[in-house]
């Protein structure tokens, strides 16, 4: 019997070790994200507040500090982590399924469509509150992705066509968003929306957490479940089919999960570029192309990266918040350039 179980146990050990290491890194990043900010708060106070709220530890803390930490910084950091993970996973899935190293929700117009949907709901008052906005974002994201894929297919269906169609889709939906804003929003709404579209986490509260974390977790579970299917797409969809993958079903489920994650994240924090593009490639470089490693690595790295980007956006200019999309672009654009150069060398 022990011979039977030994291989399983030894195969499990690295999973457990890496899982623990990853979880510790994530927790450390979250504590870091909560601690650093405009108002300097000592780590001991942050830990005391966390302990008070998580298991009623009963430490004496200034209620203002406790409020800042528990009502603002904790949800903000958690949403940053969920968004980073969700966007990075979306990139991993899209790159594998459309077999294009440049695929990510931002470049393929999914984020732009989600933005249009969310803005339409807000301005036209089609629905109400968080869920209405997310639903609008989901509808917009699905519509734009569908249009981009159809356009790419009509144009011949190659890799360059998909990227070009994605650019067209992004432009179209960004224009629609601007049109909606100019037509229907008052000046104050317009400024708020524009600011939010650049990526902004300052309005995040606890209800947002209960949307972001389930969306990211659902996406992570879907990606892990289909990790082998994603591998099987390496040599193309037809080769995946001959390896026993129900290609159409896997595509629909995974692209649905991607759209859901992107739409949720965009409706919460606006559209944040480059995470879905740069993180998956950086992780391919570090852990290789196999998805059972790539998926968790990208989710973790995306979460840590967006927490760091959020912290940077808060402390970069004293007493001013730089939109987080600006920070990710400042880091991401050079990363993107590296990917382009690396790809040329391989081709």
């Amino acid at each position: 019997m022990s011979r039977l179980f030994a291989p399983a146990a030894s195969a499990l050990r690295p999973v457990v070790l890496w899982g623990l290491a990853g979880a510790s890194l994530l927790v450390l990043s979250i504590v870091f994200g909560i601690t650093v900010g405009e108002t300097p708060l000592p780590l001991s106070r942050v830990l005391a507040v966390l302990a008070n709220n998580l298991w009623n530890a009963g430490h004496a803390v200034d209620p203002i500090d406790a409020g800042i930490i528990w009502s603002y910084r904790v949800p903000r950091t958690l949403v940053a982590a969920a968004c980073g993970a969700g966007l990075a996973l979306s990139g991993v899935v899209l790159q594998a399924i459309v077999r294009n190293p440049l695929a990510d929700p931002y470049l393929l117009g999914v984020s732009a469509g989600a933005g249009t949907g969310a803005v339409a709901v807000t301005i036209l008052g089609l629905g109400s509150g968080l869920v209405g906005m997310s639903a609008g974002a989901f509808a917009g994201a699905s519509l734009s992705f569908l249009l981009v894929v159809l356009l790419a297919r009509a144009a011949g269906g190659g890799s360059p066509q998909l990227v070009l169609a994605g650019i067209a889709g992004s432009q179209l939906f960004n224009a629609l968003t601007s049109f909606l804003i100019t037509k229907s929003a008052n000046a104050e709404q317009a400024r708020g929306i524009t600011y939010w579209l650049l990526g902004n986490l300052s309005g995040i509260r606890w209800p947002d957490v209960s949307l972001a974390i389930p969306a990211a977790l659902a996406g992570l579970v879907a990606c892990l479940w289909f990790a082998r299917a994603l591998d099987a797409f390496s040599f193309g969809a037809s080769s995946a089919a001959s390896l026993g993958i129900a290609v159409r079903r896997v595509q629909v489920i995974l692209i649905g999960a991607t759209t859901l994650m992107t739409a949720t994240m965009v409706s919460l924090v606006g559209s944040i570029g480059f995470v879905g593009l740069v993180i998956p490639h950086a992780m391919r470089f570090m852990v290789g192309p196999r998805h059972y490693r790539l998926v968790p690595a990208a989710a973790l790295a995306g979460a840590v990266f967006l927490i760091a980007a959020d912290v940077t956006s808060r402390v970069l200019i004293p007493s001013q918040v730089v939109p987080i999309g600006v920070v990710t672009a400042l880091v991401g654009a050079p990363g993107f350039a590296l990917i382009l150069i690396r790809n040329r060398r391989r081709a």
Partner: protein
Amino acid sequence: MKLSASDLGWCAGGRAIVDGVSLDIVPGETFGLVGPNGSGKSTLLRLLAGLMPRARGRVLLDDVPMEGMSRRDIARRVAFVEQMADTSEALTVRDAVELGRTPWLSALSPFGYEDRRIVTEAMDAAGMGHMEDHAWATLSGGERQRVHIARALAQRPRLLMLDEPTNHLDIHHQLSLLRLVSKLRVTVIMALHDLNQAMNCDRLGVMEQGRLVACGAPGDVLSPELVASIFRVHVTALTDPADNSTVFRFHSLEDRR
């Protein structure tokens, strides 16, 4: 594994690419498919593997209609090596061969020791065992072809479909591949261009413009008249003194005018 196909057809651009092909494959045989470029060999193989959308006709695997089977069930029986399949992922040889285990695995039954053993065996059989850590991008055309064949072997199929498997291979690897294929205890359907290699199949089918125009024992099918009309070459049959087997030599029809 037994395969019977009836009235297979596939159209593209208003043209019949494969037209009314019916075929019965006997368990254990090695069936060769020959025909000029564009005659529909690859398309027919893909139809037989159930990989074509909008296909006409039906395929039975061991008397079970393929349309009722899940992709995974098909992939546990049938492995397919495409004519050209490439990747931009930085996979190693072992990674690529491991893909062959996909139909046997799920999230609940992960890759185990038995799978590892099968993958190693498949790499060795295809002569790629010594290169298992090499990156896909660094492999030569023939090495890639052998990785694909190893991947198909790792799938442990009962029917192996190969589209021009000897393409890109040097003469040593061509012969060892054909020997390997003939020794496998599985049914094989393969498209070939080399008529001398095709002579070693148990049976041959000849494709021309989407139709199966001849089918039978290689010696009967590849008559000088048929070769002249289908392949537009003149052929002389020689006898190899080493083993008394028939060898073809080809001459361009123009040379004889």
